[in-house]
């Protein structure tokens, strides 16, 4: 992974597997975050499952909030304080773009401390 500046990491970080379908979901997640008025950073990573990627993302983010998306379409949202194996929210494989945007919005809501939207 390239070196990141402090300004870049002062965002909600979305780590996604470096493949077309994960990239597309990450794009939608970032829209959800933007609609909530929060900065976002997309980071492609060679490989990993969504829970590991979310962990990596929240450890990278100065806001301590991270989203992980894998090629199977599984999406995880976690916070630095959460146990490594327990994401805050988790969407199983095969998530669509709508779900990805919702997860992005909820990532912003986690930081802003407002209730999540589930549907």
């Amino acid at each position, binding site marked *: 992974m390239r070196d990141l500046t402090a300004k870049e990491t002062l965002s909600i970080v979305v780590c996604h597997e470096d493949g077309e379908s994960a990239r597309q979901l990450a794009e939608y997640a970032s*829209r959800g975050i*933007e*609609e*909530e*008025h929060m900065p976002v950073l997309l980071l492609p990573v060679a490989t990993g499952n969504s829970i590991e990627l979310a962990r990596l993302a929240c450890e990278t983010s100065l806001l301590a909030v991270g989203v992980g998306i894998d090629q199977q379409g599984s999406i995880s949202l976690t*916070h630095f*304080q*959460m*146990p490594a194996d*327990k994401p*805050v*929210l988790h969407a199983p494989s095969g998530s669509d773009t709508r779900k990805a945007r919702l997860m992005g919005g909820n990532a912003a*809501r*986690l930081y802003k*401390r*407002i*209730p*999540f939207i*589930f549907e």
Partner: protein
Amino acid sequence: MALIAGVDIGNSTTEVAIARIDNSQLEFIASGIDRTTGVKGTKQNIRGIINALTDALRFTSYDIDDIDLILLNEATPVIADIAMETITETIITESTIIGHNPSTPGGIGFGVGKTIYLKDLAAYNGPDAVIPLVDNGYDFAEVAAAINQAIDQGKPVAGAIIQNDDGVLISNRLKYIIPIVDEVRFIEKVPVNMQAAVEVAESGKTVETLSNPFGIATVFNLDSEETKMVVPIARALIGNRSAVVIKTPAGDVRARRIPAGKLQIFGQRHNASIDIEAGSDEIMTSVEKVRPILDVRGEAGTNVGGMTERVRAVMSKLTGQPLEEMTIQDILAVDMFVPREVQGGVAGETALENAVGLAAMVKTNRLPMQQVAEELQKEIGVRVEIEGVEANMAIIGALSTPGTAIPLAIVDMGGGSTDAAIISVSGETYSTHLAGAGDMTTMLIKSELDLDNMDIAEDVKRHPLARVESMFHIRMEDGSVRFYNDPLPAHVYSRVVVLKGETLEPIISHHSMERIRTVRREAKRRVFVRNVLRALRQVAPDGNIRLLDFVVMVGGSALDFEIPEMVTEALAEYKIVAGRANIRGSMGPRNAVATGLVLSYFGHNNRGKA
């Protein structure tokens, strides 16, 4: 040895006290409680009685067959019911407002222009400012590109109305900041080619122009008569972060006042007729003047008429007694503000409407307790007797509270009614029954907070609140913090919750914890403090509460975590020592009547032997 059970069938719970009498020694060995089945005084109660007896015997070596005698009380022939009716309604016809609170509107500012479909924007060439309407068929990038192109061509775009939740995404891609209202659910209802005003306030603020009748008048050049018409619009928009008002020709918005009707109170000496719109204070003043009440009727063909008829019809059906015999003996009226969906809104807007809540106490014939006793005896094969009148039994039970003595006043705060009784030094008792108690409080909480169902309203009433502040901690309504070792479930995150022991029950509403707390406490105060004072005034010597020394609170609502404090505080003004009962020194405010039944039986039987 004899095993005696006192059974008290209340409006909402059936309570049991079981005692062993051995060589003139009385010893209470068990207590039980269960939900009352059916309306009290009907045969349906038997199920609940058996459940409560089973509950009591759970930790003993006895079975129901081992009981020698069951004592029932002569139930008070009153049953309470509650109803609520809104008396105002905001209806918008031939004109449109959008006044919901999307979480993230786009841009900022105020704009006026004609509404136009986005697809027609490219072809538009007029001089007037326009406001595009965007349905969910467009992607935010397309919308931003189309508006940017229009701006480049010098077309005046004053704002935008969007169906999707894309306000910020679009705004971030525009060359100029314009107000954008999004999440407009029924965008197809927004009229096109009409003059519209769009306003988005910066975060933390609320709309200023469209929530002001004169602001709307300025925008649409209204005369003074027309300005009067837009007052309900302005009212409905107060407190919103974004708003749209669209004027259509012959636009007509009005806050309709539903003819609420008059309440007729028939007393023994005189009658009163009072307009519901006069408010609850006026109604209650009339009730006090007319007392003792023979019946209360609502004016036929009005809301209140429907309300009182409904109460009587329900009661008649439940008790199986003819409708004509159902007379209302007491009412408690409470003013309420209830959120109601604005008729004709396009995004699910709500407005606070006036409403009146009414608890009514219906006098029936003597409840057929004897029948219940006979049925019960037949069903379980144990001798059943009617021991005494409810109020007297409650006093006898309450006197088992350590530190009490005759003369004593009790208030019984239950689910359906608030009762008071007094015993004088000479042993005479007086009692009264008033409409309105726990169920009324629950209804007020449910309506004022617009909660989905009675269960959650009941939870709000019974338990303190907290707010989930992180995945690991909650802050209680008193400000203290509780930490959890395991992450809390995501669906309670950042919500206001009720603390039911270890479970956190989220309250799905936009109300703040402070607001919910205020509504809860006000509901309790308006029902219980008012009713306790009313009830005590009726049993106190010369109607003077100050002549009472001791007041003991019994009943299910006396278990509440704040009602007894509120009552104690209110009665302290009259220099009365008031507190929660502790029946038999161990039962708290519960079980007064059941205990009283056993004590009463033991009292007169022992006297016989001695």
